[in-house]
């Protein structure tokens, strides 16, 4: 695959299909979209297979000086590879989820989704500062249209809120980017990641980037766009929002804030910890009292993302790896949970939790999948959620026991609201006749749920497959931020063991 522009091809396939969908009628548009996303998935698998673990940091690089002021530069490291895989994996499932539920303006809908796919891959593959910004911002247009045209009853308010919130966050980042390019004399992201900005300026630059990524993430208190957007978006829109768009914030922290501004990151780590702690506790409590299933899952996303941010700002490999796995896991699990909601929403057209009940009787397979994803979301060992949360919390424990203590309550609260949700939906009496009459999963829904379930279990049982490509990049990042690493609060002093006991201990060790 040397020299073959596979990343460009991955960008071009959905783009071309998007144009084709605009002019196609409904049935053809669905087929085109599914084929294009599957082709992109196959290309993604090829990308992963050909990715040389332990090889060069940036692989599959392409660079063409097409534009004035910035270049068309693509390339991926392990972190970007994993996030691209997540995107191409979720896309065919999203198309499948919208197969029957979208009835009006199918061509435009599919075109918007395919355009989103191009832009998401572009964000993760861009190696030029401005190219990144263009992909990052351009995603607003198709998402605005997806929420606004095909969304629920409050869709217009939600679409405005989504667009303006994210735009306001991002424009300040653009000014910071302009300043950085002017100062460093380059727009090449790998070069900038090694460039040492003056710590005083870093503060401002960090804040400008934070404004953008914190909104995208989203962190408390700028998370309020998320529940609105999630609830109003169509099922597939929620999947993409939760699955991939939120990851752009985390990716931004990993790619920009941490390596480019290590001193400022250390300086503001406590701001991030503070906001994350509030987010974990507050949004979990809010989720507990929701009556709307999608809103509940949306609030749980905010809590999960807070675990990501504390892991990122722990400044150690465990925290960083944990954050990445939480992001990947959350992408799969929350996507799957939104799909689960979509499955029953398609049948009953309500998201009200009280309208369901006892679904495990008439929909046993559905209840099984829903159970698996709920458990993965809680972080049960054996599922992907456990690996990520454990690593993140282990990372933050090296920095602060208090933050760990507060954030760990999130796991308990998380178990509380998720299991409460599950009990109300799947167990108990079948109090509503229409809900009791719903048929179980059909083959299309099986085809959507089964791959995600497999991936969730794979990541939970053998996370090494996912960690291996990222390990080297995370080590590099850790080395880069090492100089600003905060001291941990747990100053463990090795005590003086008794002579005899110590000897016995050594002997015991030696016996092993």
């Amino acid at each position, binding site marked *: 695959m040397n020299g073959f522009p596979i990343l460009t091809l991955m960008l071009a396939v959905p783009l071309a299909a998007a144009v084709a969908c605009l002019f196609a009628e409904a049935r053809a548009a669905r087929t085109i979209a599914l084929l294009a996303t599957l082709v992109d998935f196959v290309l993604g698998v090829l990308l992963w297979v050909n990715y040389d673990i332990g090889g060069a940091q940036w692989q599959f690089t392409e660079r063409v000086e097409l534009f004035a002021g910035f270049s068309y530069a693509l390339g991926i490291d392990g972190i970007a590879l994993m996030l691209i895989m997540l995107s191409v994996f979720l896309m065919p499932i999203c198309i499948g989820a919208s197969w029957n539920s979208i009835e009006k303006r199918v061509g435009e809908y599919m075109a918007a989704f395919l355009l989103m796919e191009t832009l998401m891959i572009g964000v993760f593959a861009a190696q030029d500062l*401005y190219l990144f910004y263009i992909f990052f*911002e351009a995603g607003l247009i198709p998402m605005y249209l997806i929420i606004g045209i095909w969304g629920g009853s409050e869709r217009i308010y939600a679409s405005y809120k989504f667009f303006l919130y994210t735009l306001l966050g991002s424009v300040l980042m653009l000014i910071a980017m302009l300043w950085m390019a002017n100062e460093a004399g380059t727009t090449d992201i790998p070069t900038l990641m090694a460039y040492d900005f003056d710590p005083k300026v870093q503060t401002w630059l960090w804040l400008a980037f934070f404004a953008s990524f914190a909104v995208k993430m989203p962190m408390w208190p700028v998370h309020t766009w998320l529940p609105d957007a999630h609830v109003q978006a169509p099922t597939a829109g929620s999947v993409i929002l939760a699955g991939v768009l939120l990851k752009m914030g985390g990716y931004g922290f990993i790619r920009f804030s941490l390596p480019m501004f290590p001193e400022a990151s250390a300086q503001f780590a406590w701001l991030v910890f503070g906001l994350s702690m509030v987010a974990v506790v507050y949004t979990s409590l809010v989720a507990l009292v929701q009556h709307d299933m999608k809103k509940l899952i949306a609030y749980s996303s905010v809590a999960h993302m807070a675990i990501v941010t504390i892991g990122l700002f722990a400044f150690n490999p465990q925290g960083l790896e944990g954050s990445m796995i939480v992001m990947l896991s959350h992408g799969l699990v929350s996507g799957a949970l939104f799909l689960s909601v979509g499955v029953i929403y398609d049948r009953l057209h309500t998201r009200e939790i009280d309208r369901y009940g006892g679904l495990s009787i008439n929909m046993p397979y559905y209840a099984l999948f829903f159970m698996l994803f709920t458990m993965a979301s809680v972080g049960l060992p054996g599922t992907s959620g456990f690996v990520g949360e454990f690593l993140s919390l282990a990372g933050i424990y090296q920095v602060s026991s208090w933050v760990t203590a507060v954030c760990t309550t999130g796991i308990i609260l998380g178990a509380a609201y998720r299991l409460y949700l599950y009990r109300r939906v799947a167990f108990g009496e079948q109090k509503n006749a229409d809900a009791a009459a719903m048929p179980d999963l059909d083959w299309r829904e099986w085809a959507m749920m089964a791959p995600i379930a497999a991936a969730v279990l794979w990541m939970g049982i053998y996370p090494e497959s996912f960690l291996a490509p990222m390990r080297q990049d995370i080590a590099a990042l850790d080395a880069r931020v090492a100089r600003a690493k905060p001291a941990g609060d747990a100053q463990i002093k090795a005590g003086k063991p008794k002579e005899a006991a110590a000897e016995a201990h050594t002997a015991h060790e030696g016996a092993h």
Partner: protein
Amino acid sequence: MDWSHSLRLIAPEELLSISGLVLLLVAAWAGDKASRTISVLCVAALVGAGVLVAPALCAGAMGPDTVAFSGQFRADAFASFAKLLIYGAAAASLMVAPAFFERVGAMRAEYPLLILFAALGGGIMVSATDLLTLYIGLELNSLASYVLAAFLRSDERSAEAGLKYFVLGALASGILLFGMSLTYGFTGTTAFAGISAALDGGLTMGATFGIVFVLAGLAFKIAAVPFHMWTPDVYEGSPTPVTTFFATAPKVAALALTMRVALDAFGGQDGAWRQIVVFAALASIVVGALGAIGQRNIKRLMAYSSINNVGFILIGLACATAEGASAMLVYLAIYVAMTLGGFVAILMLRDAEGQPVEAIADLAGLSRTRPMLAAGLAMVMFSLAGIPPLFGFWGKFVVFQAAVQAGLVPLAAIGIAASVIGAFYYLKIVKVMYFDEPADKVAGGSDWAHRFLLLATSLFISPLGYLLTKWLGSLADAAAAALFVAV
């Protein structure tokens, strides 16, 4: 003085003047029947003038060779860049007009001629290097514009627009003349080079007042806050093809003129006018954005949008650097394309009886009845809001880049944050067209010229436009360099 050299340099102006005068005679004899033919000939004259102008831009002409009539007039790359935009916008305003005026039975032969003379005046404005040439060009442009605003004689709104434009325009001209006389009085010359040399010695109180009044007069012409009040009324009242023209050609001319005056004549004293420009820029961005939110008429909305855009362009001027000037020119080029696209789309909005549809509420559900038109208009709106990957983003990008390079980071940060307010009302149009239930007000059928222009401008502002950034950037750089060469 080498007359033949000077006359060669003003060849485009000669072509436009002679064709304008000859066609005026044709119009007098042939009457309104010939108006379509005259329109075609006027477009041909503008294209011819464009061909004459282009070599100077491509060669990056600058320096003493470009000076005509002992420093009255300069035909350098900068002037060529602006002239190409002016001629292009004027030609487009001619192409869209017949279909509009014929429907209301008001197509008259004077329309193309007035546009031609206004374009000629605009060309003289951007080439002026003397206060007197400046004034001649400005008045030639303005007088033609006043008549154009009132072109639909039987329409009350059009007459009102013409009168308003004339009274306020005359006031602005008075302010400008007052400033010019002060400048002349305190520097002893009307030539830009002389003024610049005289001001290098230091700024007297009188000269400061001169600068302030000149800039105030020019701010009126470019519709910068606080001299913007006429814009919404005039844009709404004028016939739409005329509004198309107002929003593009005279705006380019006045902005290029302002650049020449500020950076050449007052170039040594940028400290004296920078605050004014910074204030006007931020005030225009904010007022343009806030004023547009409550509008129900799409032409008024576009008027506020043009005020908003002028604010962004002025950020480039506040830099007072060659990069800033180059960024302004790139922005202007993109702005002209976006505005043309927007107004052509507005011209295509007609109800079943062929009456123009201007109320924003009547656009509801346009994406289902006229998908291509709605897509074109939506692209213009997103582009005006500066959302990548549309080309409008690039204009804002280069302007803010220049501001950051010039060290004006706070200005750039405030300006770009305020641009989010603007995004709100552009989104409103998209929302009405795409999210609302169809109002079925807009009927089908459009003129081929409209379709062609909308397609061309849409392609330009689409992401494909980025392929032009290198070419556009180098032309703008050459033009901006010409502005900064002392003769």
